Structures are given as C-alpha cells and as structure tokens.
C-alpha cells in the first residue's frame, strides 16, 4: 500500500470527501493561507477555492454557532482550529448546543459538524499551546471524539466524521504530523468507538490514545529487552470508548498501564482504569498504573518540557514497575520531538 504522512492523510481525506459531498465546506483561521494548516487544507483550497475553503474572523464561539446554523440546513462544515487550546472559546456552542441539538430538539436530526483541533508539542510551546483537551470533550453526550495516532486512522476517522450525522471533535497531535504510514487510497471510514490492537502481547496491556498510542508501541519495543511482551491498544476514539477491547486484552494479560497525553485527574486514563475496575476486576493481577503528565501546566524550558510529557521510557518503566518492581529500565529512546523546531 502507498504511504502518506499523517498530515497528507488528513489533506487527502478532506479533498476526497469534498469531492464526494458538495455540502462540505472548510472554515477556520488561516485555512486558505500559504501554510494551509500544516498543508492539510492547502490542496482543498487549491481545488475548491474560496467558496468552499475560507478564512474567518477571530471569534471561535460565533464560528461554532455559525457552523451549527449551516449544518441545521444541510451543510457539513469542517472547522479547523490550528490549536485546540482556542476551542475553550467555543465551549458554549459546542457543548450547550451542537452536542445537545439532536436530543433537546426531539431527535429530528443532529448537526453534522467536524471540528479539527491540533495539539501542540515541543519547542517550548507552553501552557496555552500544548495541552490536549480530550477529557473535556469526551465528557459530553452527543459529541464524538477521535484522536487518530496513525496516518490511516487520521484519514479514516476524518472520513467517518464527514459522513456522520452529528458533531465530531478530532484532536490531532502535532508530533504525529510527519509520521508516515500506509493509507488506503479510497474513502474508507474508520468507525468511532473501535479501538485497535496495535501490537499483540501477553504480559501486560498498555492502553494509549493519540501520541501515547505511538509512544506505547515504542515502549513495547524497549520492554522486549526485558523479556516483557506488551500488548498495545490504541483507543482511537474516546467517545464512544471501546471498553470491550480493553476487557478482552486484560483477560489475557491481567495487567494494565494507561498512557495519556493529558492529566490524570478525571482524565481518559481515569476512565480506562474505571473500566478495568468495573468490567475486568476478576482478571486483574496487579494495580492499574497511569502514565500522564504531572499535575501542572505544560512548561517551556527544555528540561522541564522533556520531563513533562510521558514518553516510551516512562511508559516502559511503569510496565516494569507493575511486572518486576525495582527493575531499572536502562537506556531509553530519543524524544519524539527531539529534532522538532517548527513550524508550530
């Protein structure tokens, strides 16, 4: 199969979906500029022009409402946020209206809107440009929330979102944009609510999302040196959340480490741990461990930033702690963004 980067896969999904469905339009700050949102909207703008790919004034909350109003009469807006941190400004429209639309207006149909939010990582982007908001979005009934970790899933989840019937939030980690992988050429949808076993194993289950699914796979490589066979699960979406795939894996391994790009308290890692406690208790042989950023905002200074984000070494060490307490990990691997210097 031919290979694309994560960013190229998003671009291709956008263009192909827009070709197939004239009701789709793309709106966001800078979607039509020379950068084209890291190249993900540039080709769509070249093909479909300003009638269907257009820049907007600032005003995230209004733009969200505008997308709702367009979707209410048959459009399919794709709204892009170059940083998901700006989506705090649209929470009222997103949670109080888009997510509730179908339910509170009597189940006459939802508002099919796709919100792409990019999560920054590296080069000291700091507290307001490198946090990942999945726990917040996942809390509200009526939204679908996806966090693709591979180029194929970046395309497939976006296709699924653009063909769906309700509002969707897709969070894309900037650290994944240059990642290459095999991507189907056609419009193949990846359904929400289906996790994926990235790598089979027998000793311990590592559940990750977004960048942490990728990092968990790298952790599994390290663990081989310690004769540990880790099974890695990429949840791919957190609402709906695939509980069954977690339970199936725990039946086999009996041990769980959860890695998340966001904080532990009330986070997705807490939800996964709750699933283990409620639905897989008989299989658990050890306490669940979570690997998450520490309880502080993302810092800027390099040593602090390196220490802030979970990485393959911290994930692998957590696995060793569960399996063989006291065993030091030894050498780790380079940070995923070690050579990153922009564009942000």
């Amino acid at each position, binding site marked *: 199969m031919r290979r694309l980067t994560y960013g190229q896969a998003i671009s291709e999904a956008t263009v192909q979906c827009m070709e197939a469905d004239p009701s789709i339009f793309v709106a966001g700050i800078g979607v039509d500029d020379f950068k084209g949102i890291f190249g993900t909207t540039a080709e769509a703008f070249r093909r479909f022009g300003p009638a269907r790919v257009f820049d907007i*004034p600032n005003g995230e909350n*209004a733009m969200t*409402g*505008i997308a709702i109003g*367009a979707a209410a009469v048959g459009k399919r807006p794709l709204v892009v946020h170059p940083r998901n941190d700006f989506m705090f400004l649209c929470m009222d429209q997103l949670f109080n209206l888009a997510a509730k*639309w179908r339910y509170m207006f009597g189940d*006459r149909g939802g508002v099919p809107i796709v919100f792409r939010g990019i999560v920054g990582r590296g080069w000291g982007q700091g507290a307001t440009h490198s946090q990942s908001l999945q726990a917040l979005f996942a809390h509200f009934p009526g939204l679908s929330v996806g966090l693709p970790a591979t180029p194929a899933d970046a395309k497939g989840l976006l296709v699924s979102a653009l063909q769906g019937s309700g509002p969707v939030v897709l969070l894309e980690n900037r650290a994944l944009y240059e990642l290459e992988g095999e991507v189907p050429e056609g419009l193949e949808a990846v359904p929400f609510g289906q996790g994926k076993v990235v790598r089979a194993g027998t000793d311990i289950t590592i559940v990750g999302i977004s960048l942490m699914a990728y990092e968990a796979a790298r952790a599994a490589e390290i663990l081989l040196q310690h004769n540990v066979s880790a099974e890695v699960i990429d949840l791919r979406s957190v609402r709906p959340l695939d509980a069954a795939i977690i339970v199936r894996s725990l039946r086999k391994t009996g041990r769980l480490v959860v890695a998340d790009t966001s904080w532990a308290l009330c986070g997705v890692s807490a939800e996964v741990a709750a699933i283990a406690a409620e639905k897989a208790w008989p299989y658990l042989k050890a306490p669940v461990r979570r690997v998450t950023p520490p309880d502080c905002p993302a810092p800027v200074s390099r040593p602090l930033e390196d220490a802030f984000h979970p990485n393959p070494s911290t994930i692998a060490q957590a696995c060793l702690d569960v399996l063989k307490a006291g065993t030091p990990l030894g050498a780790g691997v380079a940070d995923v963004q070690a050579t990153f210097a922009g564009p942000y």
Partner: protein
Amino acid sequence: MTTDSRENLLRDMVRIRRVEETLAELYPSGEMRTPTHFSIGQEAVAVGVCGALRRDDVVYSGHRCHAHYLAKGGDLRGMVAELYGRETGCARGRGGSVHLNDPAAGVIASSAILGQTMAVAVGTALAFTMDGRDHVAVTFFGDGTVEEGIFHETLNFAVMRRVPVLFVCENNGFSTHTRLDVRQPASVSIHARAASYGMPARLVDGNDVFAVHAAAREAVAHARGGAGPFFLECTTYRWREHVGPQWDYDKGYRTKAEVDAWIARCPIRHASERLLSEGVCTPSQIAAMGRASQIEVDEAVAAARAASFPAVEDLTLGTV
C-alpha cells in the same frame, strides 16, 4: 399594506396573548414542569417581524420564545404538549419551554443561553447564500445578549460575509431583574452599536405592531436582495415576572406604576384602537378573534393532557 394583513397582525397577537394567558393561569397547577418565560406584553415584535417573512424563511429565538414560535407558524399543539412534557411535544418532552422548534414552519431552534442563536442564524443565512437560495434568517434576542461577546463576534462576521440575516433585539429594559442602565452605557444606544459594525440599524417602537412590520419589511427586502444583514432594536416591556406566570411589581426591582404605564401601551390595545378607528375591524370581529383563539388553546391543552409521557426506556435515545 392590505386591510386583511393588518387584521392578521392583530389576530396573531390576540392569539399569542390568549395562549400565554391561558398557560399562565394553568401553570400554578404544577403540570407544566418547565421554567417558562412568558412573552405577554411583547407580542408586537414577534408578530410584526414574522408577518414580513415567507413561510420558507427561518427564525431562531432564545429563552422567551413562545411568541416567536407561534408568530412564525409553529404548531400550537406541539408547543403546549412540550410544556406538559409529553411525547407529542415539539421536542418530544426533551426540550421544554425554552427549546421550542418546528422546522416545518421555519422555527429551527430556540435556546436558553444568551446569544447562541444569533450566531446560529448567521450560519443558516451563510448556507442560504452558499446555496444561492433567497431565504432570510431572523434571530430574536434581548437587550441582555448585547453584553455577550458572541453578539460582537456575530455582527462582525455577518457584515464581513454580507449574509441575509435580520437581527431583532427586543429591548425590554431588563436582564432578569437588572436594568439596562446599570449594564450598558446609556450614551450609546444598542442600535447605534450595531450600526457601528457597518449595517443598517433602526430603533422601532416594539409595542406598535404596524411600525415593527414596516421596519421588518424594509429589513427583509434589504437582506433578501443581497445587501447583507439588518438590525432592528424594538423597545418593549415584559409584564409578568422574568420566569413564571406571576406579576412581580411588589418585588422591588420595578414599580406597579411602571408596569401599569406599559400596560396602558399594550400592543394589542394599540392595534385594536387603530383598526377600529380606521374602520378596518369591528369590536365584534376583535372579540371573535379572542374566542377562536381560546377554543384553539383549550383544545391544545386538552390534547396535551391526554397525550402520553415519553417512555422511560427511550431516555437516552437521540444522543448520537
């Protein structure tokens, strides 16, 4: 304007008043378990604006949405059943008084958070433009919404994209119990602030249905003709409490004299006197409007009370 349509404006106001006064009388019995914001006293804005619209134009409203819903042609039985929490309600008992909708009549949505549907109406108007359709979208909101950030974001966007939207601000002088003069600078009126974004904006007597209607016709023609958004500030007054059916002039935030002065300016009395003096209607014709509306609302209440509640098994239906 034809005699017939002027009579219709009065008839629509009488009907909305009969509906709401009936619901206000029944409300204390406790069967309508939904916080209800009555439009009594403010009917002329809804009726004057909606009278200038086509059936295939659309309206959006906020928490005080009954009059807009009914004036645009929203189904009365669906509204009453919604207040009674029945499966036959316009939102199947999931939305309540503040989330009325009837898309078939062009009432796309109402919502209780200030300013939400301003932006949503602009999005619908944008879609109309993108599709080359000549419909107009209207959003009704109160003076309180002017203080929200989304008010400014929305006006800015609407002007930049020249979308066919009509902003209708019902300035009733209060945000809940707080007067306008302690919330907004008195030196700059609401319509002047809207005009500063670069769109035509008019101040209209919101208790004069004929004045509202004339202004709305101009605004709708402007928007439908592709000239972009239009803003109407309509001054009016809420008679009953902010939420609920009671009178509240004894609560200290306003006086009975103030309420009485506005009741003396009742939009229905004003329109009735005008049409009587011009010989357009007779007193018996106007009385008949009230009787017909009363029968209609009584039947809607009876139908709602006889209808089933939603099944509890369906509690979570419609979330995705």
